C-alpha cells in the first residue's frame, strides 16, 4: 500500500452538533501522539519523486507477512500524520525498506522527503491481507505499476528462500524508464528460470526515458505479450495486482478474459491523488 493521498476535506454529512471530545477516556478519545520508535538509516533517490527509504526499528523488525503494509508517522506542522506503505523487505530483515512516491502538496511525503538519514520516525504494526497463500503452487503473476512494486519485492525475496518456490512472473509498468525501481535486483532474481521479469515503459519517447530499449506500453500490453508467449497458463495462475484502481480494473478484466479464474485475481489499491 502506498496511500499517500490527502484526505479530502469534504465535510461529513452531519447536520447537528457533535458532543465535545473528552481527553483521557480510554479507547474513546483521540490517541496521544506516539513517539518515534525507529530511525532512517538510508535513503536512495530513484528519481526526484521516488525514493527508497530504509528504516531500522529500535526494537528489531516487527513481525509481518510479505505484502503487508506498515504505517510511517511524522509530526507535520505540529500534528502527527501517518501513512501506510507496503514494505519491500522480506520478513526477518533487520531494516525495513519502503518505496515511496512524493506527492507535491501531500500531507506526509514532503516532510518525509526532508527527513535526513539518522532522523527519527514512527513505524506502526503490520496490517493488510494482500499476502501469499502458503504452499500455493500456481504460477504467481505479479502485476505492479509505479511504487506498487514494493509488496512484490517482499514476496519475491520471501519466495526465493524456498527451494520448491512456484514460478513467478513480474510485470512492472512505469511511465518513465528511471522509475523502474529494483530493476537490477529483479533482473538478478530473474536469472532463476522460475522467475520472469518484464519491465514496461509507457512513455518511451519522452527524453526522461532516453536509452530505453525494452518493452513499451502498459502492463496490459505486457501481460498480453507474456500470454502469447505462453509464459503463464491462465488456468493455473494466481495474479496479484497492485496499482491504481483503474489499472487494477483493466488488468483484472484482461486476466479474467484470458482465463484466469476471477477468484485468482487478488488486488491492492494504490493511489496518490
Amino acid at each position, binding site marked *: *500500500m502506498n*496511500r499517500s*493521498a490527502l*484526505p*479530502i*476535506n*469534504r465535510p*461529513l*454529512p*452531519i447536520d*447537528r452538533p*457533535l*458532543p*465535545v*471530545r*473528552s481527553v483521557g477516556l480510554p*479507547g*474513546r*478519545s*483521540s*490517541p496521544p501522539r506516539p513517539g518515534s520508535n525507529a530511525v532512517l538509516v538510508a535513503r536512495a533517490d530513484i528519481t526526484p519523486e521516488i525514493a527508497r527509504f530504509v528504516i531500522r526499528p529500535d526494537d528489531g523488525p516487527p513481525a509481518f507477512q510479505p505484502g503487508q*503494509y*506498515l*504505517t510511517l508517522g511524522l509530526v507535520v506542522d505540529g500534528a502527527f500524520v*501517518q*501513512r*501506510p506503505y507496503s514494505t519491500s523487505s522480506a520478513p526477518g530483515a533487520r531494516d525495513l525498506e519502503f518505496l515511496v512516491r512524493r506527492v507535491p502538496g501531500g500531507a506526509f511525503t514532503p516532510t518525509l522527503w526532508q527527513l535526513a538519514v539518522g532522523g527519527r520516525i514512527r513505524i*506502526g504494526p503490520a*496490517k*493488510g*491481507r494482500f499476502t501469499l497463500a502458503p504452499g500455493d503452487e500456481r504460477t504467481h503473476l505479479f502485476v505492479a505499476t509505479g511504487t506498487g512494486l514494493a509488496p512484490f519485492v517482499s514476496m519475491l525475496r520471501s519466495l526465493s528462500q524456498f527451494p520448491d518456490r512456484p514460478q513467478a512472473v513480474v510485470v512492472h509498468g512505469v511511465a518513465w524508464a528511471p522509475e523502474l525501481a529494483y530493476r537490477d535486483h529483479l533482473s538478478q532474481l530473474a536469472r532463476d528460470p522460475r522467475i520472469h521479469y518484464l519491465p514496461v515503459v509507457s512513455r518511451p519517447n519522452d527524453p526522461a526515458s532516453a536509452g530505453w530499449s525494452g518493452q513499451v506500453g502498459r502492463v496490459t500490453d505486457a501481460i498480453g505479450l507474456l500470454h502469447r508467449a505462453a509464459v503463464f497458463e491462465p488456468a493455473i495462475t494466481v495474479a496479484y495486482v497492485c496499482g491504481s484502481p483503474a489499472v487494477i480494473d483493466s488488468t483484472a478484466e484482461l486476466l479474467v478474459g484470458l482465463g484466469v479464474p476471477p477468484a485468482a485475481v487478488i488486488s491492492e*489499491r494504490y493511489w496518490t491523488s
Partner: protein
Amino acid sequence: MAYVIAEPCIDHMDRACVEVCPVDCIQTDEAADRKLYIDPEACIDCGSCEAACPNAAVFRSDQLPAAWTGYAWVDAAWYADADAARDELDRLLRAA
C-alpha cells in the same frame, strides 16, 4: 472526509476492518456496542475497511445511502460521548 460504518454492521461486527485499518481508527466496546465505529479525526481515507468488510457496511461519508446518513454522526459522536452515540443508534433503528 472519512469512512462511516452503517447499519449492515449491526450485530455482525466482523472486525475485518479492524484488522486492515493502518491507523487503528476503528473501535468498539464489545460489552456495550452493536457495531464498530470509525474515528473521523483519525481516518486517513484509505478505504481498506470498505474493501475488507464482508457485510458491505462501510461507506465513504459522501457516498452513504440516504437512509444511513445518520451513521456519520453516530460514528463521530461515539468518540466523544459513546452513550449519546448509542442512543442515537437506537433512535435510527426504531425509525428505520
